[in-house]
């Protein structure tokens, strides 16, 4: 038999109708995640066609993008500040009730960022197809699932048929070998990969992250890596499941149990690329040579090791526009530049290990005067764990602003934004112009670099404080 990639195996298992030259494949979707921003138009479409949700039990809804992070707005009597956001939240409540979809609503203890809560529940599992109207759905590929973001029309297609029309993408092996040096994290690894592959290098492809470095990563770290696949242009990124994956899933509320657990694990063990499987493209990177990484421009591919200088590229208009927006010049060092806000959170770096890493640097230290350190847990569950393990006390003692879960300042939809011209060192995934507020200047880095920079009030190599 021809050796198969992990992607091929998952794809084939979900072909309801294979593709032909004239028609795309009809691909079955195992799990459909829904949130308030990209679903209203899809539910409206169902309503106008008079069509029900075909498999409501394969659909899970929550609210994360436009929801407030202040406790008094989530649990108290203070209303959501933005009328339109409040309307979106009400619309999702109404749609979920009308169509029989399970919703983790505003005050539900299981609420959180959609890409954080599904793994946490054990709902994202190896070999599944998972979609959501959000490009960071690639996160769930950390479990060996084929998971990708879709638009609202496709959300409607999945609600109505539990299927999508898809052309088979190409495969792209990202081979990572070597041990990550101290102070260098999974976030630095994926930023380095995007810097090399480029922001469109993965277009038309599904990444598979492979090699000894990937095998040594925890699930939280693997999710950070897969999360940013889309920043390299790939709709999905996958990691073959292994003992780390099984240990993470065992005992979670929606993971298989009893006899089902053993048979599931036996199946999951077959989900790896066969020896000799070929990929359409590949890229090798040595993790042992990496440094903490930081972006200097207006896309995630404009990234350098933290000790490097900003590239000087005379005649490159796009580079010049990005540096103009950021208020930087070619040749300048990144270390020592002032920061105004530090944001630790998002579906990229809002998990417990990320918070623990930040706490490691913040313990016994104070946030620099004039710096706002905003820490937003990825889910209410993570918030409770951080409070139970004392991390939140470390944050509060350091002078950080500790909030309820949500997407928050990653995209600023809920009003958590920074002012024009201000610098935000952020553990999120996109440094696009205006992403964190009109005129806001975003620098992407790891939770360690974020915490170190919050303490010093300027961009700081975390290895100096470790």
């Amino acid at each position: 038999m021809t050796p198969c990639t992990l992607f091929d195996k998952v794809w084939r298992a979900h072909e309801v109708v294979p593709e032909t030259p004239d028609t795309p494949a009809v691909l079955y979707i195992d799990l459909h995640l829904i949130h308030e921003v990209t679903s209203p138009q899809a539910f409206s479409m169902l309503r106008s066609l008079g069509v029900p949700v075909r498999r409501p039990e394969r659909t899970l809804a929550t609210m994360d993008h436009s929801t407030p992070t202040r406790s008094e707005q989530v649990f108290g009597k203070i209303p959501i500040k933005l009328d339109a956001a409040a309307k979106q939240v009400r619309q999702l409540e109404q749609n979920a009730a009308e169509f029989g979809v399970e919703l983790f609503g505003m005050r539900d203890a299981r609420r959180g960022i959609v890409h954080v809560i599904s793994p946490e529940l054990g709902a994202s599992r190896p070999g599944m197809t998972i979609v959501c109207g959000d490009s960071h759905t690639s996160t769930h590929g950390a479990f060996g699932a084929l998971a990708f973001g879709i638009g609202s029309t496709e959300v409607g297609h999945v609600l109505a048929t539990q299927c999508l029309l898809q052309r088979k993408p190409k495969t792209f092996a990202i081979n990572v070998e070597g041990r990550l040096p101290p102070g260098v994290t999974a976030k630095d690894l994926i930023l380095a990969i995007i810097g090399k592959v480029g922001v469109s290098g993965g277009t038309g492809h599904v990444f598979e992250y492979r090699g000894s470095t990937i095998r040594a990563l925890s699930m939280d770290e693997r999710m950070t890596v897969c999360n940013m696949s889309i920043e390299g242009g790939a709709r999905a990124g996958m990691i073959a499941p292994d003992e780390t994956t099984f240990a993470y899933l065992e005992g979670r509320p929606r993971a298989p149990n009893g006899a089902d657990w053993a048979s599931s694990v036996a199946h999951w063990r077959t989900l790896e690329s066969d020896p000799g499987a070929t990929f359409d493209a590949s890229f090798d990177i040595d993790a042992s040579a990496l440094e903490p990484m930081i972006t200097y421009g207006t896309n995630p591919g404009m990234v350098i090791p933290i000790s490097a200088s900003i590239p000087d590229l005379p005649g490159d208009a796009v580079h010049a526009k990005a540096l103009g927006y950021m208020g930087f010049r070619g040749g300048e060092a990144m270390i020592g530049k002032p920061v105004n806000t530090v944001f630790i959170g998002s579906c990229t770096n809002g998990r417990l290990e990320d918070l623990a890493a930040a706490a490691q640097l913040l313990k016994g230290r104070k946030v620099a005067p004039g710096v706002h350190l905003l820490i937003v847990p990825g889910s209410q569950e993570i918030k409770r764990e951080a409070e139970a393990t004392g991390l939140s006390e470390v944050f509060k003692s350091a002078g950080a602003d500790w909030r309820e879960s949500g997407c928050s300042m990653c995209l600023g939809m809920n009003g958590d934004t920074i002012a024009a011209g201000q610098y935000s060192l952020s553990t999120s995934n996109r440094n696009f112009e205006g992403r964190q507020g009109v005129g806001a200047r975003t620098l992407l880095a790891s939770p360690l670099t974020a915490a170190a920079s919050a303490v010093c009030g300027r961009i700081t190599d975390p290895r100096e404080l470790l």
Partner: protein
Amino acid sequence: MQPLKVVRSRTVVIPLSNIDTDQIIPARFLTTTTKEGLGRHLFADWRYLADGAPNPEFVLNQAASLGCEVLVGGRNFGCGSSREHAPWALLDYGIRAVISTEIADIFRSNALKNGLLPVTVDEATAAWLLANPGAEVTVDLAAREVLLPTGAKAAFPIEAFARHCLLSGLDELAFLRSKQAEIERYEAARPDA
């Protein structure tokens, strides 16, 4: 959906690579629950000054851009988020085709589902288009060709089924729903589905 065969228009050019969906429509405008009226927010942070007045430097605010239905952008147009609000905003403004050397996957898929043509052309054609804003071009979906005023033609690839749906005004969901029996057979054959 109305059938779409040809877009013939002058071009408006934004000569930047990696134009992301946060630029096409910033996240603060995604709190809508409908698709309508997003054209006024298209490229909002480039198009309007801090006081809300039109930025005269931005190409969409220049007289020559009025009525243009073809947008030419640099490489990797539409990268970033999955928001379908990006093609909705472009269409509501009046853009019917986007031309680049490379178009991001999710944006491309969203565009095709709404009758916005994602057109990827070779480097030489793209360079000519970027250097000649306002050129009258014809995007011919049936022929899969862009016709330049010089008489030059550039072929573009487009997924066969999406093209068929656009040319005949068919809805992809109707096709998917016609596969009901196959979907039921698939679910029956997979005990966990």
